[in-house]
């Protein structure tokens, strides 16, 4: 069993209006030192033992569906987890 954590974030070159609104809100709360906020997505995928190439599969699904390469980057962490 593998637990995979996938982080999808907007590319640096892409403006993040949502992050900007949150940054402004933090600033108005008095947290003036928060220079920038970028909002992304966090996903957890659970793989069973039938998947032999976990890393290859993770990359494939990230590119095919979980992220849109035109505007987003992804990174992932793979952890072995015990059978439940």
């Amino acid at each position: 069993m593998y637990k995979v954590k996938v982080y999808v974030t907007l590319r640096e070159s892409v403006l993040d209006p949502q992050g900007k609104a949150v940054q402004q809100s933090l600033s108005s709360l008095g947290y003036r030192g928060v220079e920038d906020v970028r909002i992304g997505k966090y996903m957890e995928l659970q793989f069973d033992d039938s998947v032999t190439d976990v890393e290859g599969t993770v990359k494939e699904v990230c590119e095919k569906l979980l992220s849109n390469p035109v505007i987003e980057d992804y990174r992932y962490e793979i952890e072995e987890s015990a059978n439940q």
Partner: protein
Amino acid sequence: MKFAVIVFPGSNCDVDMYHAVKDELGEQVDLVWHDADNLDQYDGILLPGGFSYGDYLRSGAIAHMSNVMAAVKKAAEAGKPVLGVCNGFQILLESGLLPGAMLRNKNLKFICRTVELSVQNNETMFTSLYEKGEKISIPVAHGEGNYYCDEATFATLKENNQIVFTYASDVNGSLSDIAGITNEKGNVLGMMPHPERAVDELLGSADGLKLFQSIVKHWRDSHVVNA
């Protein structure tokens, strides 16, 4: 001419699109469920607006993996007109039939109002009945219509005259006020504004009707003898 309106779970402009074609355009049209795998009998494919799969993950991301999309790609490759409106445009972007992607509107709000568009290119099968530079009134209704692409893609869009509609003034933060683009071949059009909601003066505007009439004219000119 026979059209297919593709219906995904969560489409909500499918019936408007259906009636625009059937009642205002006077052509044949079927509603086709997203699991269909053959669209060979149709001369034109329409992807309607809505919130397919609840916009989960990204707008259009899940719908673009639907069974029917292979048939939509086949129709596009065969040169048939493929029109994606709003969520339909987002699905075309996700599927790679059109370049670029949608971001959230710059002001983070869902924008629902009639806007003015400029016809940038009237030499397409979708716009031949408009004048170049013509200003038309068409409603928009979207939260993610802020068109984005990288500089190289933008240069290609301009070079090939693929930018067909722009907003007359900034609506959602779209790059260069882009409201609608075609593929390089010119037979796939994606646009955020809803022409199917502007096909009769009773609806506030009939400016969208010429888009559908252009498609039919193009088809008649190439398929009907003595048209």
